[in-house]
C-alpha cells in the first residue's frame, strides 16, 4: 500500500493560481430571461426546490441533476442551476467544489471510484486502483478515481462502478469491469453488493438468497 500517492483526487489545486478575467461581467444572479436552461433540468430542479421548506436545500440535488445532464459541473451547468434557483453561480460553485462527487473538470461517462481507504488498502485497494487504470488504458471515457471509504469495507477491496458497489475485487476483475462497461451489460454481476448475504447468522433465511431489487409499488 505504499506505492500510490494518496488522494490525488483531494488535491484539486487548480484555481489557486488563477487571476480573474477583468473582461467578464461580475457574476450576479443570472436572469432566466437571458440564461437558457433545458426544460427538463429546470423542471427537475424546481421539483426539488418544492420539497423543502427553504428552497436553497435543493442545491445539492440540483447539482446532481445538472451533472447528469452536462456530464460535469461545467460553468454552464452551474449558471443554469443558479438561474433556476435564483442564487449566484458563486454560491453554487462554492458548494460544487466542496463535495467529492461533483466533477469540476470534464470527465468520461464511466465513473469508477476505487476505495483506497484503510480497510480496502489492507486488502490491496491501491493495487486495484492501478489495475483498473491499466485496464482502462487511458480511455478518456473512463473516469477512475481513488476514493475514500465507500462504506463497504466488508467487501474490501471494492469499487463503485457507476454507483454499483462491487467486491471483493481481484486485480483480474478490473479488465472484466472495463469490458462489461464497454459492452453495456451488468458489471461483475456475482460480486455486486445487492446479492451479498448478511454475515450475521441471525440475518440469514433458510434457503433464502438475498437480492435487493425493485419492489412493486
Amino acid at each position: 500500500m505504499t506505492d500510490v500517492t494518496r488522494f490525488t483526487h483531494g488535491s484539486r489545486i487548480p484555481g489557486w493560481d488563477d487571476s480573474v478575467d477583468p473582461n467578464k461581467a461580475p457574476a450576479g444572479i443570472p436572469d432566466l430571461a437571458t440564461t437558457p436552461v433545458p426544460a427538463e433540468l429546470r423542471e427537475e430542479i424546481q421539483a426539488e426546490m418544492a420539497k423543502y421548506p427553504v428552497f436553497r436545500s435543493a442545491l445539492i440535488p440540483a447539482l446532481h441533476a445538472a451533472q447528469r445532464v452536462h456530464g460535469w459541473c461545467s460553468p454552464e451547468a452551474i449558471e443554469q442551476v443558479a438561474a433556476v434557483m435564483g442564487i449566484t453561480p458563486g454560491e453554487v460553485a462554492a458548494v460544487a467544489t466542496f463535495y467529492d462527487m461533483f466533477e469540476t473538470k470534464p470527465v468520461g461517462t464511466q465513473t469508477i471510484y476505487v476505495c483506497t481507504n484503510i480497510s480496502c488498502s489492507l486488502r490491496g485497494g491501491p493495487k486495484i486502483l492501478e489495475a483498473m487504470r491499466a485496464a482502462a488504458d487511458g480511455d478518456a471515457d473512463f473516469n477512475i478515481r481513488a476514493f475514500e471509504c465507500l462504506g463497504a469495507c466488508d467487501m474490501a477491496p471494492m469499487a463503485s462502478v457507476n454507483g454499483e458497489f462491487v467486491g471483493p475485487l481481484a486485480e483480474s476483475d478490473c479488465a472484466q469491469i472495463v469490458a462489461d462497461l464497454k459492452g453495456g451489460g451488468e458489471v461483475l454481476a456475482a460480486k455486486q453488493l445487492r446479492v451479498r448475504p448478511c454475515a450475521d447468522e441471525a440475518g440469514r433465511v433458510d434457503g433464502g438468497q438475498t437480492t435487493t431489487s425493485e419492489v412493486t409499488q
Partner: protein
Amino acid sequence: MPRPEHNEITLTIDGRDVTAIDGQILVDAARGGDIEIPVFCYEPKIGGPVGACRMCLVEIEGIPKLQTACSTPVKDGMVVHTQTDRVKGAQQSVVEFLLVNHPLDCPVCDKGGECPLQDISYGYGGGKSRFIEPKRHFVKPLGLSPLIAIDRERCILCYRCVRFSQEVSEDHQLVLLERGASTFVATFDGHPYVAPFSGNIIELCPVGALTSRAYRFRARPWDIEGSGSVCNLCPAQCNVTFTVRDDRVLRVLSRDHDGVDDGWLCDKGRFAYQATHSDERITAPLVRDGDQLRPATWERAIQVASGIARHPGAAAAIVGGETTNEEGLLLGRYMRDTLASHDIDSRQGGALSAGVLRELARTDLQATVPDLEFAHTVLLLDADPVDDAPVLDLRIRKAARRNDTQVLVASGRPTALDARAAVAVRHAPGSAASLVLALDSALSGDHGAATNHATDAGSDLESINALADALKTGGEDVVIVWGERVTDGAGGEAAAKALVNISTTLGLGTREGSGLLELPRGTNGRGLREVGAIPTAGPGLSNPVTVGRSTDQIAAAAAAGEVTALWFLHADPTRDGRNTEIWTRAMASAGLVIAHASTLSPELAEHATVVFPAEAGAERDGTITHPDGRIQRLRKAIGSPVDVRPAAAIIARIAEVGSGVDLGPATGPAATEAVSAAVSFYAGLTVDEIGGRGLRWQDRDAATNLPAGDLNGESDAPVPAASPNGALRLGTYRSIWASPEVELSPALKFLSRRPTVELSPVDAERIGVIQGQNVDIGTGTDALRATAHLRSDVPAGSVFVESGLAAPGNLPSEGQLIEVSKA
C-alpha cells in the same frame, strides 16, 4: 422594535473584576476591562461568530474544554482565565498552525506594520517554527478585481471577506472554493469581484491577502497620517479617514460611525479620492476667449464673474449637492439680498412650498439611520438606496437579516432590495406621487380614491392594498425611506402632503423609532434646503419674501431670455440628461455662465464664461447636513493645488468686486456660526459642538425653533401615467457609478457607465433585440444609442435609461412615452 436592553453584570477575568453587559461577547467584555483576547475571525460588524480561527481560546471555570471567547456570551459571576499555561499553549499552537502555510514575506507585504497577524504572532506566538516542509507557493499577487489584489499564500481563511459578501453586502459573489487545506477565496469561474461594496474586504482582511491595487506599495504605516472627515460623494455621508502622505490622499478608510455608516464604505467613497490627484482635473480658473476656455489669472476670472452684478433680477443659480451649508447660505444671500434674484435651486424636480418642507422636517417625523436597523417595517418609496445612498442599503439588509425587519418596496424601477421585500409594488416610472396618494387613500380606507390614484400610478388597488396591509400589520415602528423623486413634477406637493398624512395615519410621530427619511439627490440636499438654497424658502425654511424659479423654470426662463446670467455652483444640469436641449439653449443665450467644477461636460465647455476649479472632497472645510439631520464637518485633510480656492471665498470675492458688498465670514468656524445664526433650528451650533462625530439638530434644544408647517396651500394633481402604446414609458436611474469622480479616478474608470437601457424580455422580443444589442431611444438626431440589458423584473411597457452620464443624450421627463427601436 425595542432596542436591546443593557443589564450590567460583573465577571472575573484573570482575577480582575470586569463590569460588562449581560450577554455581551466575552472578547468585547474583556476589552472593556482592558484585557486583550486575540482574535482573527471575530468581527461583530459582519455578523455572528464563526469560531474558525481558534485564536481566542480561553479557560472558563466549570467548562472542561477551552472555549472560544468570540462566541461566548458573558454571564454574571463567570470566571475566565486568559493567561494560564493551557491558554497560552493553545494560542501558541494556533499561531504556529497559521504560520505553517503563511509565507514570511512581511518585508514585501503591503500589510506590514498594520497587520494583526504580525502583531498576534509577536504577542502570542511561540517565537519559533518547527515546520521544515516546503511552504506552498502560488503565483501572486493575482487580480480579484480591478480594485483588489489577492495573495492566496497569505490567506489564513478567517472567512471575513466571504462572510462580508454573503452576510453584509449580500452580493454572494465572493466565496470559498474547494475544501480543507485546498480551500481558497475566489469568485465563480474567474469573474471579477465587482460589487458596490467590494472594497470593504480590504479593510476586513487581517493579513496581507487582500490589498488595494490603488494603494499597494504607495506607503508604509509610518509614512502616513490619518485625517478624519466625511465623504461628500452622496447623501449617505459616510465618515472616513483619509490616509495622507506628503499632502496627497493615498487611501480612504472607514471611520466607523454607528449613526451614519455602521463602519462600511462603498467603492466610490473608497476609491474616488484618486480624482483629487487626476491630471484631468481642472486646477486653475478658466475664462472664455472666443470659442475656447483658457486658463486665466484669479483677478481676471473674478473680474469676469463679477459681471453677474450687471444682471440684477435676471441672475439665477443652480447649487449642486456637494456644496456646503456655508457656501449655500452665502450664495443665497448674495443672490437674494444683493442681486435681487430669488431664482436659486438645489433640487432638480420642482419646488415644494416652505410650509410643506417644514412639515416634512418635523422632528417627531424624522427617522434616523439607526432607526432603519430596528424598525419593524422599512418602506422604500421610489428609492433604491444602493444607488441613492449606498451605505444605507447595507443598513436595511442588516435589519432584515438580523432583526427580521419587514422590507416593503414601491418603486418604478426594480430595486436591489426587492429580493428582501415582503411586498414589492411597481408603479409607472415618474408616477411615484400617484402611488403615494393611492397608499394614503388606501390607509385611510378610501377605496374609491385609492383605485383612481392606483390607476394613475400605473398600478392597481390590489397591490396598493397589499402594501397598506403590510404597513398596518407589520409592527408599530415604521420607517419610510423616500426618494427625492417622489416629489418631482406637478404632483410633488400633493405627494409630500400625502406622506405627512400617511405618517399621521400610521402614528409615526408618536414613536421614537419611526419616521420619514428622505434620500435627496445631492449629498447635502437637506442642508442646502435648510440654508435656503431653494426658490421657495429662505434660511431656516422661512417663508421667502418672493418665491423664485425652480431648476426647470430657470432653464426655461434662460432659454427665453428672461434670465441672463447663470451660476452653476458645483452643478451641471446637462449631466443628468433631462431637458439637455433646453439647458443647452439656456446656456447659449445667457450672457454670463459661471461654473465651479472639476471637469467639464461638453455643454459647459462650450458655453461657460468662467470656470472656477472646485475643491476636492479632501480639500474642503465646512458643514453638511445628513438626510437624518446630522450636521457633520468636512475637514481639510490636504492642501489644495495652488490655484484652487474655497468656493465660499470666491463667492465673497465676487460680491465684493462686483457689488461692493461684504457678505461676512466666508470660511472657517465663523462661517459655520453664520449658518447657525441664519438657520433658526441650528441656533448656537459651533464647529466644536459638531466635533468629529457630528450631531443631529433635532437632538438640540434649538430644534424647537423650527417654525410650524403648513399643509393648506394649493397643490396640483399628478399627471396620470401614460399607457404604453408601442412606445414605452421612460424611466431613468442614476447608478452609484455615474459621477465625474468615477470617470476621473484611474482605479474606478472601468466602472464608468456607458448608455444602457433596461428592457423587459417581452418588450425586447417585440422590438427584436437580444441581450447586449444596441437600441435607439427616441427618434431622429436626438436618439440616444444604448446597450440593451434584459431584465425579467422590469415590467413590460417601461424602459429604464441610465442617467448621470458624461454624454447623457437628451431625454424627455420621466414617465413620458418614448420610441425604442433596434439600432
